[in-house]
């Protein structure tokens, strides 16, 4: 009996967690499919399916522009972060130099500052660099929080790659470039996908910097654009459209996770060395 009780308890808990995390998104989808006064009726199953909100948001040129901005910013952030992190991780994990640990801790320390604490200073820097009101300001700013964890995760990962594999490649006559492209990158693929995905999500969702460093409707990214969506009058909040937009911006993340989930093959390094 206790076994059954325990199992039931376990599944109840799982059900609760799933409900807790999925419900807000479910409710957003539900709301996005309503129209007119249906918005103000609370129900938990779809009564009608109205695509009007989606049609509205997807025919809004500014919103599409914002979506493209977000894709651009997040992708560039991922590419640059991964490139810098791979090269930094190589140095930090393979080359012994004075102050290596201190440097690693400093990198980590950067990620401790709350965004709001660096906001004012960063604003000055961005204005000074002439990046204000461009997407490059966001790309620049997002590195502040994507680089520390990409560098850390990749350094740890690379440190665990047996050095003999690299040495075997050297003995085989491989150049440093060949070693990185033919040996390291294939082995680091799972770590790259994971950290890249996290960096993408972080950049995709970022709100505060995006609100501060860009003031032009055409240059905004989607989180800010959605927050600033307004109806015909100040009293009317277009909930249906906001929810439709929220669903639209969530879909790419879900798709990305589903695509790469399959490719995150753990234990790829097992078997190269003893054991």
């Amino acid at each position, binding site marked *: 009996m206790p076994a059954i009780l325990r199992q039931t308890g376990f599944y109840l808990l799982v059900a609760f967690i799933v409900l807790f995390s999925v419900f807000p998104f479910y409710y957003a989808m539900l709301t996005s499919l309503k129209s007119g006064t249906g918005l103000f009726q609370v129900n938990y199953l779809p009564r009608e399916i109205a695509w009007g909100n989606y049609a509205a948001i997807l025919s809004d040129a500014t919103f599409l522009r914002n979506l493209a901005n977000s894709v651009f910013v997040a992708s560039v952030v991922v590419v640059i972060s991964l490139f810098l992190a791979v090269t930094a991780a190589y140095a930090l994990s393979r080359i012994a130099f004075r102050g290596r640990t201190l440097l690693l801790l400093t990198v980590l320390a950067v990620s401790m500052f709350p965004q709001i604490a660096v906001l004012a200073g960063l604003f000055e820097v961005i204005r000074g660099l002439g990046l204000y009101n461009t997407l490059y300001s966001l790309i620049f700013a997002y590195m502040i929080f994507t680089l520390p964890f990409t560098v850390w995760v990749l350094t740890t990962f690379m440190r665990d790659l047996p050095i003999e594999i690299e*040495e075997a490649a050297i003995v085989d006559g491989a150049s440093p470039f060949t070693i990185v492209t033919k040996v390291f990158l294939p082995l680091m693929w799972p770590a790259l996908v994971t950290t890249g995905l996290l960096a993408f999500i972080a950049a995709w969702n970022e709100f505060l910097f995006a609100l501060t460093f860009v003031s032009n409707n055409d240059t905004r990214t989607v989180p800010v654009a959605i927050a600033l969506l307004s109806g015909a009058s100040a009293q009317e909040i277009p909930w249906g459209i906001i929810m439709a937009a929220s669903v639209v911006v969530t879909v790419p993340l879900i798709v990305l996770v589903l695509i790469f989930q399959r490719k995150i093959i753990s234990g790829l390094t097992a078997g190269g060395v*003893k054991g």
Partner: protein
Amino acid sequence: MANLKLTKIRKSYGAVNVLHGIDLDIRSGEFVVFVGPSGCGKSTLLRVIAGLEDITAGTLEIDGRVVNDATPKERGIAMVFQSYALYPHMTVYDNMAFGLKLEKNNSKAEIDKRVREAAKILQIEPYLDRLPKALSGGQRQRVAIGRAITRDPKVFLFDEPLSNLDAALRVQTRIEIARLHEKMHGTTMIYVTHDQVEAMTLADRIVVLNKGNVEQVGSPMDLYNRPDNLFVARFLGSPSMNILPARLDAAPEGVAVTPEGGARLSLALPYRGAAGGNGYLGVRPEDLVPVQPGQPELFRGQVTLTESLGEVTLVYLDTGRGAEPVVAKLPGEVRLERGSTMGLAARPEALHVFDADGRAVRGARAEAVAA
């Protein structure tokens, strides 16, 4: 086909000196084994030869050319790592072909031919399409060796290649490596191990290393029968040589050795030390026999333990002096009461005498006279 010449090779990591000036000549086609206790610098020396570590001082020549600054590939070496170090994401075939593909002038057919040849020699043909993780330890080790063979190296380096294998597989692979050396005659092989059995069975010549210095270089039987010093004497042989502190005096015949509390023996060995000098007497367990009437007795003591190993019996004798028991390896099965008293003797040629610094006192054939 390559001979190597190491001249005063030093290696330090910052303030830590690991190799203290190694001089060594390795002939073309020779199988040389570096042996020594863990941490003595064997791997470091091998990696210096491979080109994976910079040489702090000294020169390394291959075929008369100084290669201190040459890459491993330019030196024409191939290496088998202790941990195999296969590329985990490549099939066995690709692992073996990787080095060949990096050379520009190899045609696909040529690569294929060489990989398949190596695979045939090592009997890994059935696994060519597998990933390393789908192989057993022994198979991985063969792939690692195969990867080195395909490159057709001038010098073949092994760093403890058998230490991750179980005992049975270790013996089998050891025999295969010996066979491989016969097949690839002309290829110089350098093999690192801490296992004296591997060293004795595989080597044309053994280099005994200790704390970053060469203790002795010679053929296995040379080192076994005529160790230059206490370290080599203790290191080779199992159980290891019995060593007892002894008093050395000049004698008309050569040297008079008086082991602590034992009888005085005269041996025809040149001794130039002071009278009453400290030294050591060494004798291998298998050279000890129960004393016969009229024979000079070397040790007398109480049997504390006997171990029957089938073809031999190990007898541990407490001689009443020193902490270490004297060990004798007697043929066949020997029944002895624990606590019974026993006397042991040895042929004079089997005795080793060392001076206070642990250096062998050595000369023409020794002859013992009971004093």
